[in-house]
């Protein structure tokens, strides 16, 4: 376990000393800031004309901002995962891990935890942005928390899939493009199942989609099934990454 933490520490350190991480965080913050203002504006206009106040500001933020954030992160996270393994293979530094007394599971977990630190940081920035509303309104913190949890789980799922893709190739750019493609496929599965109902197992295919499981969470419902879905998604791709690395040794 201490070795997993060592790997995670080194990984997150390497992420945070690279300009890429800060560029990604800055761009993310600017874009999400713009969305934030747009949703606040939409809420303010709706509040003037609405007769009942059944929609609160947390709905706009939890439902609107966090959904939009998902789409932005879908584009951004493959950029963060592309380096995890492919760059190490390209530079040959993966040998350090392979010749050290650590198992492949420890390597993959460590790298994923290191990435998780970065993702937590990104969610943290978004949390702070949401919490600024507390100065002017009575915020529904439960809604916000559920939405952020959903967002974080979604990011972990993106990260795990991206990590797996980066074990497949030596070229970081290919890892980024392929990771983006893979995430998009999981994203649109719901659309596929809805528009092509004649498809066998359409329901099951729709259930696999990443987006469907976020809907409950953004509405403030933390359902075990959805949380477990994300955790299984993460476990599955990390396991694939371990298998892939094991295959490479032979």
């Amino acid at each position, binding site marked *: 376990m201490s070795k997993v933490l060592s790997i995670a520490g080194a990984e997150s350190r390497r992420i945070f000393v690279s300009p890429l991480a800060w560029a990604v965080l800055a761009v993310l913050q600017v874009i999400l800031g713009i969305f934030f203002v747009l949703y606040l504006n939409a809420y303010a206009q709706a509040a003037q004309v609405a007769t009942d106040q059944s929609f609160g500001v947390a709905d706009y933020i939890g439902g609107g901002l966090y959904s939009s954030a998902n789409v932005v992160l879908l584009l951004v996270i493959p950029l963060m995962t592309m380096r995890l393994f492919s760059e190490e293979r390209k530079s*040959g*530094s993966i040998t350090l891990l392979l010749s*050290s007394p650590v198992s492949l599971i420890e390597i993959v977990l460590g790298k994923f935890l290191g990435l998780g630190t970065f993702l937590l940081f990104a969610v943290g920035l978004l949390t702070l942005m949401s919490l600024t509303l507390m100065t002017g309104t009575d915020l529904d913190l439960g809604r916000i928390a559920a939405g952020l949890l959903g967002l974080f789980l979604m990011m972990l799922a993106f990260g795990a899939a991206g990590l797996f893709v980066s074990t497949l190739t030596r070229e970081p750019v290919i890892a980024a493009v392929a990771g983006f493609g893979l995430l998009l496929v999981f994203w649109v599965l719901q659309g596929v199942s809805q528009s092509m109902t004649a498809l066998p197992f359409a329901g099951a295919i729709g259930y696999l989609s990443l987006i469907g499981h976020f809907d409950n969470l953004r509405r403030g419902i933390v359902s075990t099934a959805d949380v477990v879905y994300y955790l299984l998604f993460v476990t599955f791709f990390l396991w694939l990454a371990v298998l892939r690395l094991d295959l490479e040794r032979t």
Partner: protein
Amino acid sequence: MDADVLLETRGLTKRFGQNTAVADFGLSLHKGEIVGLLGPNGAGKTTTLRMLAGCLAPSQGDVRICGVDLAEQPKAAKRAIGYLPERPPVYGELSVDEYLRYCAALRGLRSQARREALNRAKQACGLTDAGDKLIGTLSTGYQQRVGLAQAIVHSPRVVILDEPTVGLDPIQIREIRGLIRGLGEAHGIILSSHILPEVQAVCDRVMIIHRGRVVYSDTMAATTQAQFEAVLITLTRSPAVTALQQIAGVRGIEELGGGQWRLRLADGADPRQALAQAAVAGDWGLIELKAEIKTLEERFVELTSSDEPALRQAA
């Protein structure tokens, strides 16, 4: 098993599809021994070392590190290995200290022991002043030193070095060689090289690999004081050929011109004394007499330039 055997492998084979990269490699590495793997480019040196370091699973054969099977108990076995691959496995964005601390942690060193190990490795590799520098900003030679420091930071019993002096300037090469010799006293070292003088200068034992097979393996002492198979003699007043043939141990005679002769010898024979006496007695005007010892280079060229399709036989 002998307690001094640090690494033992037999029948180590690696196939990539139809291509056999390494065939039937065997080695016993003892404590305090430096073994040099010599071979032309593409001979299978790196593949062999990667298998010994546990980075590549062999198709056949097993590797035991201090008696522990590398395939069955990889964690326990790898704890005793330090490996420097062809390109130093460093992260350019970390400082030397950060990187070496990370390496020490990966090898399971506790934090108290880590500091001491770090200082020792840095001192051994001449990195004492470079601790705060980012590895990415260091020169190739210094990066190679960091790679070496990484391989020895946990005081492994077996150190595996793949072309440790490649890309270094002559002074650095001298330093690294000195370092390797120093390490060799307490550890067992396997290093690969295609530079003959390097192996000659550093190693106790040399193995020549050609097309994935070990074609020569002997101690350095035996290599330099090898049995000679011919004697060169230069005489100003050449005698009749029969006079030379009569000397015991001489099997064949070849005239090289200018009074120089090459006398091929029967196995184990040393007729130099008899030749000198005969030259004096016969007044041949002896001016030169020397044993023709094959240098490592000559052996290397002889063994690796043959076009014999050894691999196709092996496949």
